[in-house]
């Protein structure tokens, strides 16, 4: 009896070991970027024939100007900045401990440099505005279009549905070039929010997804509302939209993530450095500081941490939404 419980416990901890091992594979590149972003020097964290320096302790910490003064004097309290060098004190404390060879002094310098050199907060807001705009417009267009395809009987319905589905077949790069020509020559989409929102607002996938969701609503409900004298628009707005909320949430998540991460189209559309979205801004930062990987790492951390936080807060909706989309 006891032996069996033992074996079961051993099996369970074996599973956890496996789960943690896989988690390390996903998490370590992120942690590595975070670690690089607080390094002071560009010296390799893997010195030859010595242990790797992977445990940070507080070194030169602060914001604004005056980092170099603080490095010389230990402290800087000026108008444009506020720095303290904790490095020497902490180094002394670690002296002789077993941990010491693994440690290095962490600094906030790289983050200050990113904030000074590119308007990363602005890029963040740009990305947010484009993603929110895309979500709202896509939800509106797709939920409108999917309703008659699922619930109304009219001439040409099947043909129209096929036309919508056909957009899923053609690869995106096929239309990229004419879309670009049109955006530049006709619509003047460069450096605008709507230029990033409008071209991808009507999504065949979104219409298809919501049509499946509408199908699951009983016809009797709609008939009853019709008999009560509700208009078709009223039925859609007041009865159906609240009922398909889970489907809308799924589509919203898919749209938000793909807009937030979109790179090639914004790269083609944006020339003004103030109009950049985060991915374009990151790639610009990388060109800007080519050589200083530490600064780029700080930029990556600034850009990804908010996404990770939002994702962790809504992870259930993300995962169930995608799973629901697959089940149809």
């Amino acid at each position, binding site marked *: 009896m006891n032996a069996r419980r033992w074996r079961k416990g051993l099996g369970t901890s074996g599973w956890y070991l496996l*789960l943690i091992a*896989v988690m390390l*594979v996903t*998490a*370590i*590149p*992120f942690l*590595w*970027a975070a670690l690089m972003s607080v390094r002071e020097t560009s010296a*390799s*964290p*893997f010195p030859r024939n010595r242990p790797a320096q992977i445990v940070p302790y507080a070194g030169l910490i602060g914001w604004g100007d005056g980092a170099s003064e603080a490095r010389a004097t230990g402290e800087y309290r000026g108008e444009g900045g506020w720095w303290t060098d904790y490095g020497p004190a902490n180094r002394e404390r670690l002296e002789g401990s077993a941990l010491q060879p693994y440690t290095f002094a962490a600094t906030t310098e790289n983050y200050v440099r990113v904030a000074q050199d590119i308007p990363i907060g602005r890029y963040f807001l740009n990305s947010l505005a484009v993603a929110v705009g895309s979500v709202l417009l896509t939800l509106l267009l797709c939920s*409108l*279009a999917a309703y*008659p395809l699922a619930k*109304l009987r*009219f*001439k*040409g319905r099947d043909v129209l549905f096929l036309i*919508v589905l056909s*957009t899923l*077949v053609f*690869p995106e*790069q*096929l*239309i990229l*070039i*004419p*879309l*670009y*020509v*049109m955006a530049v020559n006709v619509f003047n989409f460069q450096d605008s929010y709507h230029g990033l929102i*409008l071209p991808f*607002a*009507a999504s065949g996938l979104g*219409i298809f997804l919501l049509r499946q969701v509408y199908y699951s609503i009983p016809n009797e409900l709609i008939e009853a509302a019709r008999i009560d004298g509700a208009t*078709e628009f009223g039925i859609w707005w007041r009865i159906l939209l609240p009922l398909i909320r889970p489907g809308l949430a799924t589509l919203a998540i898919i749209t938000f*993530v793909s807009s*937030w*991460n979109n*790179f*090639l189209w914004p790269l083609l559309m944006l020339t003004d450095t103030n109009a950049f979205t985060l*991915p374009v801004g990151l*790639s610009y930062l990388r060109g800007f500081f080519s050589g200083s*990987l530490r600064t780029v*790492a700080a930029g*990556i951390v600034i*850009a*990804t941490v908010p*996404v*990770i936080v939002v*994702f*962790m807060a809504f992870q259930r909706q*993300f*995962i169930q939404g*995608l*799973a*629901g989309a*697959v*089940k149809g």
Partner: protein
Amino acid sequence: MIPRAAPTVAAPGAAPPSGRQERRTTVTAYLFLAPALAFLAVFFFLPLAQVIYYSFTDFNLYAAEWVGPANYQALVQDPLFWLSVRKSFVYLIATPILIVSSLTLAIIVNRPLRGMPFFRAMYFMPAVISAVAIGMIFELVFADQGLLNGILRQLGLIDRAVPFLQDPALVLPSIMGVTIWRGVGYYMVMFLAGLQSIPKELYEAAAIDGAHPLQQHWYITVPSVRPIIVLVGVLSSIAALRAFDEIFILTSGTGGILNSGLTAMFYLYRQAFVFNNVGYASAIAVVFSLIIIVFTAINLRIGGTGER
């Protein structure tokens, strides 16, 4: 452009009520559909027609000159184009790896253990982070003084840093590794949806019959999630064929030393937006899209999920 319903004004007095009702429904339906159809017409079907026209012209974004099939003739003889198509198909090796690893991972996280939602979320996380940020993170991982070289050196496996992003033989495999790393959690969630709809009794019955857990998965799980295997296969192979962001970042926008990272998608980008050969790039787009469509159709055929 938007197909309008039959005349909204009914013939005077004659139409039977049912006919009028039907016509009204049709009008309503088209009103609901009109905005989305207008967007699709302008931003999808119009460009679709244009790209075919462009592919027969010499076009530099401002003036188009009809040249007939010259672009296609040049394309057939362009060694770089065929090289890029070959690279794109090499990239497809990512697909089977993704299917096997994400299905395996889905089976693992389908176990009812405490804290499992947390692990699922952690595995899924790379899917919500932009490919640009991930490309840059892996630049830090692949660098000479980066994580991978550091670990290999600490283990004593190498003496000099492995030039993951400089050696022409390693560029594409390294970038594919990033694509796989990024996709596993995403497709895992898709498989998870399928796994959770398999009745538990099937496994219990198999266990009574003495089937080993591995056998159970091979004979029960795999056939049950077959439609999702096809779906993941199609989605991930299309994603692999159009991969761009990771390649752009990890080759610094150049396509890699000696064109080592030059996939068809990247070649298209280079011809259109670096060299301004819009007509020629359009021909690439048309041919490569045809290749993708045929490939996907074959995929679906083999997978056999044709709706019946």
